[in-house]
């Protein structure tokens, strides 16, 4: 005799029409979700494989060092002895001087920025990010402390929160326009690091304030009360009993802000970025020149090489290579933030 089916199986085991529809819809939802992930993964794969081929190589030292340490150059393409040759501008000039007779009348095609490397761009981006994050962190964390520790409900706070929310929604190009009108022109900084720093700092300010305030609010009230009960002033309490516990959360938020700042192009287009510049950022006479100089930046370079030069086999390398370096740097920073946040949640269980 067969065992009688359990009550559960009798009720839920039978596939009813409703159940079938449910399974179908759930599969549809699953499909949508994984489709999005697949699209993103495809972009990573496409740029990763094509750009990776430029940045990495199969023999030691496995990394294309010139690409990462040289300045961008114009690429010269010409046919010599029936063979096609490609040369960066500096090498080509030397070559031309040596083989002056031979090179007479040889047609040379040129592609700007397609030879050499992207070192000044990397350096410029790092400088831009560091400066703006520093400014944004100081302003943002102090604002967050005020909002979480001192603020009492009132019109000022309501207005403040409204400003922060609206600031977060302003498009980045409007920040660029603001930076251009305010810092570059009205304050006469010119296209400079300083103008770029301030523009981007104000752009990420809402992110840092919101995230830092969250981190500060997560510190249990008891910590503050204990300190106050022992006679510490409010400021001492914040300094010794609140900030240290909120610091990891604040740092995580700042890493996220770094990813945002590094990834933006529109705000620096007319405040800080140069298309081409021969000197490196630290080759300056006085320190004031340092903050008042424009720099080359990776995202702007990608824009330039993607839109201003043709797409072909000669320009492909620099396009994909730059995109690769940029995408994976930003992705790594963002990934760090995600991992940090998860570890943080595990570590602090109030």
């Amino acid at each position, binding site marked *: 005799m067969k065992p009688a089916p359990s009550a559960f199986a009798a009720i839920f085991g039978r596939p009813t029409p*409703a159940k079938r529809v*449910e399974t179908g819809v*759930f599969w*549809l*939802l699953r499909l*949508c*979700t994984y489709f*999005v*992930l697949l699209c*993103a993964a495809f*972009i990573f794969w*496409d*740029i990763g494989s094509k750009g990776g081929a430029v940045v990495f190589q199969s023999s030691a030292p496995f990394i294309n060092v010139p690409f990462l340490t040289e300045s961008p150059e114009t690429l010269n393409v010409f046919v010599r002895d029936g063979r096609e040759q490609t040369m960066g501008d500096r090498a080509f000039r030397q070559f031309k001087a040596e083989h002056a007779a031979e090179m007479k009348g040889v047609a040379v095609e040129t592609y700007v920025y397609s030879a050499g490397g992207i070192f000044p761009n990397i350096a410029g981006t790092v400088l831009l990010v560091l400066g703006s994050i520093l400014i944004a962190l100081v302003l943002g964390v*102090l*604002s967050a*402390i*005020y*909002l979480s520790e*001192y603020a009492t409900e009132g019109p000022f706070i309501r*207005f*403040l929160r409204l*400003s*922060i*929310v*609206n*600031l977060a*929604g302003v*498009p980045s*190009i*409007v*920040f660029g*326009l*603001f930076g251009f*009108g*305010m810092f570059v022109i*009205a304050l006469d900084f010119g296209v400079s690091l300083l103008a770029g720093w301030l523009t981007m700092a104000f752009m990420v*300010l*809402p992110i840092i*304030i919101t995230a830092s305030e969250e981190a500060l609010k997560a510190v249990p009230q008891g910590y503050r009360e204990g300190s106050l009960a022992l006679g510490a*002033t409010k*400021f001492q309490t914040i*300094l010794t009993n609140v900030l240290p516990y909120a610091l990891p959360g604040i740092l995580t938020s700042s890493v996220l802000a770094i990813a945002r700042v590094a*990834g933006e*192009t*529109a705000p620096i*287009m*007319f405040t800080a970025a140069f298309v081409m510049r021969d000197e490196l950022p630290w080759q300056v006479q006085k320190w004031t020149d340092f903050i008042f100089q424009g720099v080359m930046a990776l*995202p702007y370079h*990608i*824009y330039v090489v*993607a*839109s201003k030069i043709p797409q072909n086999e000669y320009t492909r390398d620099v396009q*994909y290579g730059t*995109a690769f370096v*940029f*995408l994976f740097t*930003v992705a790594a920073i*963002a990934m760090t933030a*995600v991992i940090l946040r*998860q570890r943080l949640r595990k570590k602090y269980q109030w």
Partner: protein
Amino acid sequence: MLTLLFRMSATTETPSLARLATREVLLRKRRGWFFGMTGDQFVKYVFQGNAAVSIIVLGLITFTIFKDAVGFIPMNHANLAVYRLAGLEYVDLYREQVTAHSTMSRYLAGIRARQLDILMQKEGLAPAAAMARLAAYDGFANSFADTINEQETLLGTMTDLVTAVKERQTVAQDLAVAKKNLLGAMSGATPERAVELQQQADAIQIEVIDYQAEIKPLLALRPEIAATNASQMTAMKEILGQAPKFADAELNRRMEKFQGFVQGYFNEAAVVAEKMAAWDQTKPVGRLEAFNAFAFGRKWITASFWQDWYGIIPLLTGSLLIAFLALLLALPLGVAAAIYVNQVARPMEQKILKPYIEFIAAIPSVVLGFFGIAMLGETLRRLSQLPALDWVPGFPMAERLNATTAACLLALMAIPTIFSLAEDAINNVPRSFKEASFALGATRLQTIIHIIVPAALSGIMAAMLLGFGRVVGETMVVLLCAGNRIQTPDLSAGLGVIFQPVHTMTGIIAQEMGEVVRNSIHYRALFMVGAVLFLISLLVNWLAQKIVRRYRISIG
């Protein structure tokens, strides 16, 4: 530095503490050492001042953008006034007529192409033989096209006349600016330098153009225009009498339609003549007109030798078209992913999926734009060329970079925003709602459709709005992938409109800001566009907050 200040305040107070009773110490009103503030109060104000930076920045953004944008109205007013005074407007009226005629000639060329097609495909004639058969038609078409020649000559004369006036006006304007700059520099200069500047400024002779006199030769052409119109009309009617007949019914139909066009042209010529007669050079240009030319202008033409137009409509429609397309893709996907991750996925899956989707937000927009140029645009065009997809309106695509290419990438950018906000909203639906639904015997799907989603709807709507805000404000992707053709999307193409290249508000700022002359009208026009973007972002934010606040379900 703050700690230092704090310590200072502590040391100043210590000595007196010992002599007072505890009660007195506690109740004594402490006097501050810094402008009557205690250290703690001072620290508080430091923090408060820092927090106020956000307000200040928002205020500064508003101020900077609107300050430069507002200047656009008077400048455009002057621009339009010159357009009228110098007679450019008058010439443009006449140009309409000539353009209408050339449209008809193009229509005839279209008929010819179709006819050639029929001759070669259906009757299998060699190209030379087919051409020979078309000789009669060609004669007709050519003599028709020739009927506009006199008008074109006249138009050329008129154009030359007004361009000369406008040129002189531009020179005078530039000189006026130079003079103003010289005089402006005087205030900070040494006396000798000031005298020198004054001399330089005095040396500048600014021509005062007497527009009333300048316009006379233009208006003197009126009888000639009327005469050419009359002779053209008789010539066209005569030619139309000799219109060739075709064997093909479709072509005959087209030819009949053409006759209708010619009638329409006669009417239009009459209207134009009327408008030209009524045109009044001295009619003042209203302030509102200068604003309307921006807000409702359908042309964005800059740095042209004829007349610059700054109308936002082509840019606004381009931005909105792309944004709606992107939302159309992103909203279902984002919300579906949010429902799946929050309600259906297993905990393990959830833990991986959520950070992954949020991680997509970290892909820099310029990289996405580059991907669009290098990969997606070409792929989509190849796809559109498949014979199996011919039924889709707008396929095959004419351009690799168009509104759809940009919208696909923008959708990918908007999905994380929509996903996180919608997921939050779904997560905030009280557990008891779900449990009550299960208790009544609803399946999981029924619960999701009838309970969870309606309860989270306000959050989902807010997510949609904020996603829209993000998409409208996005610059690099549209700059690289939208095709950048300044043109109002042509709705006559039906659904195919989504495959047309467009330009956007963000794109135009990014593209033209680097090259404009500071404080010129073009520069201010770009700030005007920036102001519109700024207002849109504020509006979207305000709406989102309002929706969330208004429809929030109270738990309890």
